[in-house]
C-alpha cells in the first residue's frame, strides 16, 4: 500500500473538487489514506465507488456485446445451414428436372416409335391387300387366258389384257420394291 504525501493529497482533493476528476483503476487499490484523515478516506471511498460503478457498467455492456456476438454467430451458422439446405434443394430440383426431361424425351421417342410402327403396319397391310388384289387379278386373268388356250378359242381382248396386266404388274412390283427399299434405307439409321 502507498501512503501519499500531504502535497499529493491536497492536489488530488483540489482536482476532485474543482474539476470533478477522480483517481480510477487498480491504482486505487494500493492507495492508503494517512491515519485519521477522514476527508481523504471519504475521497478514496468515492473514487472506488465511481470506479466500481464504471466497471460494472462496462462489464454489463461487454457481456451484452458478447451475448449478441454469440447470437450473431449462431444466426450465421443457421444461415449457412439454410443456405446449404437451399443449395441441395436446388440441386435436387435440377436433377429432378433433368430426370423429368429425360422421361419426357423417352416418352416422345416411344410415341414416335409407336407412330412409326403403326404406320409401317398400315403400309404393310395396304401392300399385302394390294398384292392380294394384284395377284388375284393376275391369277384370274391367267386362268381365263389358259382356259381360252385349252378350249382353242382365241380372244384378242383377253390376250392383250393379260400381257398389259403383266407388264403393269411387273413395272409396279419394281416400283413398290424400290419404294420399300428406299423407305427402309431412309429410316434404317434412326
Amino acid at each position: 500500500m502507498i501512503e501519499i504525501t500531504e502535497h499529493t493529497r491536497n492536489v488530488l482533493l483540489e482536482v476532485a473538487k474543482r474539476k470533478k476528476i477522480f483517481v480510477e483503476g487498480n491504482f486505487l487499490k494500493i492507495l492508503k489514506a494517512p491515519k485519521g484523515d477522514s476527508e481523504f478516506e471519504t475521497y478514496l471511498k468515492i473514487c472506488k465507488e465511481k470506479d466500481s460503478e464504471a466497471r460494472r457498467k462496462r462489464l454489463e455492456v461487454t457481456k451484452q456485446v458478447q451475448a449478441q456476438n454469440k447470437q450473431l454467430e449462431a444466426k450465421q451458422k443457421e444461415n449457412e445451414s439454410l443456405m446449404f439446405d437451399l443449395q441441395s434443394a436446388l440441386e435436387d430440383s435440377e436433377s429432378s428436372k433433368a430426370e423429368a426431361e429425360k422421361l419426357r424425351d423417352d416418352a416422345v421417342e416411344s410415341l414416335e416409335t409407336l407412330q412409326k410402327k403403326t404406320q409401317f403396319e398400315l403400309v404393310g397391310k395396304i401392300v399385302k391387300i394390294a398384292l392380294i388384289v394384284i395377284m388375284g387379278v393376275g391369277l384370274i386373268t391367267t386362268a381365263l387366258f389358259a382356259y381360252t388356250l385349252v378350249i382353242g378359242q382365241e380372244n384378242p381382248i383377253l390376250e392383250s389384257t393379260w400381257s398389259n396386266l403383266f407388264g403393269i404388274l411387273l413395272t409396279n412390283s419394281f416400283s413398290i420394291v424400290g419404294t420399300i427399299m428406299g423407305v427402309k434405307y431412309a429410316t434404317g439409321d434412326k
Partner: protein
Amino acid sequence: MINTLMLIDDENLFHLVFEDACSLLDIALSIEALDSSDEADKKFKAWFPDDPDHERPECVFVDLNIIGSSYDGIEMIRKVNYEYGNGCVIGIISSSSDPEEIEKAKKVGAQFWIIKSDDIEPRLEEFKKDYEGYVSKKAPFKVYD
C-alpha cells in the same frame, strides 16, 4: 490479492469481461491479457532461464482452444510446468467441460478448471477463496462450474 495475473485467451471481449470482473472482485492488481499461446510462450522463454528474477505472473489463466495459436491451453500448461518450471498457479478457463480434456489438464499439472459462462463472477469469487491453497499447492484440482 494476486499481484500479477496473466490471461491467455483469443477472445478479446473476454479480456474486458475478465479484467472488470477481477477488478470488481478484488482478485488481481495487474492483469496482462494475451491473445495467443505463442506470445505467452515467448514471454516465458525470455523469463526462464535467461531472466529468472524477472517479475512474472503469480497466476495464469489459459483458454483451452486458442484460435490462431500453435498449441492449446493444455500444451501451454505442460510447457510452463515442465519446460519453464515457473511454479506459478496455473489453470484453464474455458467454455468446454469435456471430462477427457479436464483429465488431460489435470495430468499436465493444471490446478483448476473454470467454466466460462455469462455469469463468471461467482466462479471467480470461489476461486479467490481457494487461491491461497493453490499457491501452497495444498488445494486439490477443482472444476468451477
